């Protein structure tokens, strides 16, 4: 901040003016003369008018003065008049627009106050820097987990952006005199962004207890400003780098990402400061997926990991559940059983999305892509439900396998997914049993999770009425007792199968 004070010479001291003195001095009978005319101006040293920056201006005036405040560019040309006939000391701000409404380019600008009173005139001036400063790109770091974009149709299959790839970027801070905003997180969960470098804001995934970092590369024009700037993001700490054009700043989140699995949508404000004053700020939006951990599929390859289109709705449904495997699996059972609009195939119990390859119970192949699009409809069977449940679970890092319960058995009362009432004959009279049943377990068959059906939990599953008992961590023995009316099926063929 530079303050210039130009005193007008037309303020002669009247030498005949009486002075207050000791006894014997002449007595001044004229009215006291007003204090000399003065005007002063202070202003912010820098601001970025494209990013909410304003010049904060403080003008002080002598009593009785009238002032005019104007702005001149580096050539001395007046580009804006901020105040006419200012009669008292005041403070106000300038957003960096000239009198035609155009935001001024980067450069040094002189703010001048000119004050008059009677025949007196005085002026003062101060300089400010219109700067450009902002993030051109950002990269989320820390212990990131891969995210997979599945391709619903067309050639190819899956795309997983490298975990160290740029998360968001723009080509330039400014276009046609306006700020270019950073892109918002990519919203089309089932569509792979075609653009790889500019204009895409890729979400990122972490274990829920990870601490993300965000490295930001700056661009701009500081117009010769020679004072040190700092940067801040609320809730994040600057751990590396200093503010400057082409510099990279690394921030670290102050707290772990989340208390449990959920979608964390952060609307951050990146602020640039000179001393304590914000000279510009930029909105940074992030979508961060807080998973239980890395995926728990056995298979490897481009399809195996967290699919954005799958985990996004699942994590939103799970928000608030504890960060434990049981809580996640139980939450997923509810999510699938209640919220997905799925119905059991009460005609045939036919699978819509799962096939057992090679006639082997351990080689279930789940078409998750088709399921997400509901390509084959919403009518499913137990193989579908088991693969849907285990597919979501393993993507979120909750280890889960499917297993088979057979041979043929007759049923106690159950409530099938999408069903309205308990029945022991889901396929109608004479259709009172399963030739097989697929379900899931994280531990062989000790603990069962099943989204195909709810058991009758009133202690008497052989008779109505039925009391809904979701299969959320039921012991294998209790599950079989509640499900099987006649027959001696057994659990076998534990597997995770394959997905596409």
């Amino acid at each position, binding site marked *: 901040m530079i303050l210039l004070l130009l005193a007008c010479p037309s303020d002669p001291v009247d030498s005949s003016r009486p002075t207050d003195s000791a006894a014997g001095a002449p007595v001044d009978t004229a009215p006291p003369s007003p204090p000399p005319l003065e005007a002063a101006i202070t202003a912010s040293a820098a601001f970025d008018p494209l990013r909410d920056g304003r010049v904060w201006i403080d003008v002080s005036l002598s009593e009785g003065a009238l002032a005019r405040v104007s702005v001149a560019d580096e050539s001395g040309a007046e580009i804006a008049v901020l105040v006419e006939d200012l009669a008292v000391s005041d403070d106000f701000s300038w957003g960096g627009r000239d009198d035609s409404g155009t935001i001024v380019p980067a450069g040094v600008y002189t703010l001048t106050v000119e004050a008059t009173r009677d025949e007196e005139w005085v002026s003062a001036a101060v300089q400010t820097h219109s700067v450009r400063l902002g993030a051109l790109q950002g990269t989320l770091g820390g212990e990131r987990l891969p995210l997979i974009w599945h391709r619903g*149709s067309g050639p190819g299959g899956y795309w997983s952006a490298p975990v160290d790839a740029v998360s968001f970027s723009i080509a330039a801070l400014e276009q046609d005199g306006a700020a270019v905003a950073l892109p918002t997180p990519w919203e089309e969960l089932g569509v792979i962004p075609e653009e790889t470098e500019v204009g895409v804001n890729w979400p990122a995934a972490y274990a829920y207890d990870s601490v993300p970092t965000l490295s930001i590369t700056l661009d701009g024009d500081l117009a010769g400003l020679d004072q040190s700037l700092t940067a801040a993001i609320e809730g994040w700490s600057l751990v590396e780098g200093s503010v400057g054009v082409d510099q990279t700043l690394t921030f670290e989140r102050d707290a772990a990402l989340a208390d449990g699995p959920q979608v964390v949508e952060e609307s951050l404000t990146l602020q640039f400061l000179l001393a304590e004053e914000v000279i510009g700020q930029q909105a940074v939006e992030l979508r961060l997926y807080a998973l239980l951990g890395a995926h728990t599929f056995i298979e490897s390859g481009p399809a195996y990991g967290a699919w954005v289109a799958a985990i996004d709705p699942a994590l939103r449904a799970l928000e608030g559940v504890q960060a434990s495997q049981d809580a996640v699996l139980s939450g997923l059972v509810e999510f699938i059983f209640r919220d997905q609009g799925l119905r059991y195939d009460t005609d045939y119990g036919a699978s819509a999305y799962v096939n057992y390859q090679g006639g082997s119970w351990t080689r279930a192949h789940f078409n998750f892509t088709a399921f997400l699009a509901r390509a084959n409809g919403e009518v499913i069977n137990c193989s579908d439900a088991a693969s849907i449940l285990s597919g979501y679970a393993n993507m979120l890092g909750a280890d889960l396998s499917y297993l088979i319960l057979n041979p043929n058995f007759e049923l106690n009362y159950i409530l099938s997914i999408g069903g309205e009432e308990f029945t022991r004959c889901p396929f109608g009279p004479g259709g009172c049993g399963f030739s097989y*049943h697929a379900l899931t377990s994280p531990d062989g068959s000790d603990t069962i999770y099943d989204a195909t059906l709810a058991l009758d939990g009133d202690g008497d599953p052989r008779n109505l009425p039925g009391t809904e008992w979701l299969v959320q961590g039921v012991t294998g023995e209790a599950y079989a007792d509640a499900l099987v009316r006649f027959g001696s099926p057994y659990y076998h063929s534990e597997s995770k199968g394959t997905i596409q």
Partner: protein
Amino acid sequence: MAAWIIAGLLSTASAQELHTGIPVRGVEGLGEPDFLTPELGWSAPIEGGFVKVFVGTSAEQASDWVKQAQMSITVVLPLIDVLGDEAWGDASGLLIVRSGNIALQVRAQGNAGEIAQAMLDAIPAGSQPWPSPPVLLEVGEGQWRVEAPGAAAVRFTGGGQASPGADLTFSERPDAVVAWDEWGRPSVWSQ
């Protein structure tokens, strides 16, 4: 319903003939095909359901597929003698049919038999040679590209695509590449 049963009996090819396949696009009522694994074949949505189709290199392969298809059906389907070399289920909601080296499953809302018949009717006369496998070309240092001229679809396992675009260029060599021709026949390149 009788009409399609009679037509089916008349038009079904013999088990000895190796059918070319069923066009993956062009059978009325079938939506966009979805290609699974060479063992499983392809599928397509229909109104109120879906079809699954397998084209094997022998009738035995297709017969195994029929057994495999029945595994993921909870009720036990009856054998019915209405269509193809073998048929299971019913002509209304769920029908599994094999004709020679082709097998298909139709899950429909009342017209499974008609759809199955339309699909069998779409099998072209004669037998065309099985398509050649796709070729994986090394097009640069650590870059591969799939060549599969005329393929209706290409799928791969393993490896890594070089970009999120739809072109099949890889920065990490895939384990296997499957090209599906217009008749739903898979041909496989593998390491």
